[in-house]
């Protein structure tokens, strides 16, 4: 009988980097979503990403402002954070590895918008760094 792996969520998972299937940085683990099974035991269902996940971790007015600004800038105008389903996670170590590419996940819409609308228009932006 093998012993179950033990993971302290705050110490081992929160704020870790998330890497896609190509090895590219996607985001950080800003919070975790938990659901409760039939026995009443919570289990991890998703990684929550972005300022709408990070904001509530700040107490007081700062946290509310972070969520409000992120909600205003989001397409869906929802306070619910972007999520990566636990089913996409393939490895939890020093980083969290996923089974999808960053583009498939779509959890960095603001970054993608800035990339396509602003960065792409800067002359020379298409060159790979040397």
């Amino acid at each position, binding site marked *: 009988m093998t012993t179950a792996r*033990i993971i302290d969520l*705050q110490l081992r998972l929160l704020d870790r980097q998330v890497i896609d299937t190509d090895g590219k940085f996607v985001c950080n683990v800003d919070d*975790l979503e938990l659901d409760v*099974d039939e026995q009443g035991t919570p*289990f991890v269902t998703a990684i929550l990403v972005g300022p709408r996940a990070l904001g509530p971790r700040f107490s007081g007015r700062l946290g509310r402002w972070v969520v409000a600004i992120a909600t205003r800038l989001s397409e869906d105008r929802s306070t619910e954070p972007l999520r990566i389903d636990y089913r996409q996670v393939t490895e*939890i170590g020093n980083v969290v590895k996923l089974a999808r590419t960053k583009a498939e996940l779509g959890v960095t819409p603001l970054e993608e918008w800035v990339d396509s609308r602003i960065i792409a228009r800067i002359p020379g932006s298409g060159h790979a760094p040397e």
Partner: protein
Amino acid sequence: MRLSDLIDTPVTGTDGTELGFVIDVRCHQDGPIRGAMQTLRVHSLIVSRTHVGSLLGYERRQQQGPWLIKILVRFLHRHAFIVDWDDVEREGNAFRLRASAQPRPLPE
């Protein structure tokens, strides 16, 4: 429910005395397969009276490292304990230990 909803939640004894607050949530990866891996199921709560140094993890295991930091963090968390999820019940915005609860000190 989010992890951040559990962290910092006050924990009280059976008689209502404050024992500390949740500084971490310990999971066992022993649930049903969900995608590529087994589900992380909450097994216990780590409770302490201070957050200072808790993110270093010194208070939870034998750790190679500067002995001075190790001694300092372990001193700060000398009252810390682990309690099983089944041994606590939610009461308002706090967790209350059940009468049958058997909190354990953190491993030396």
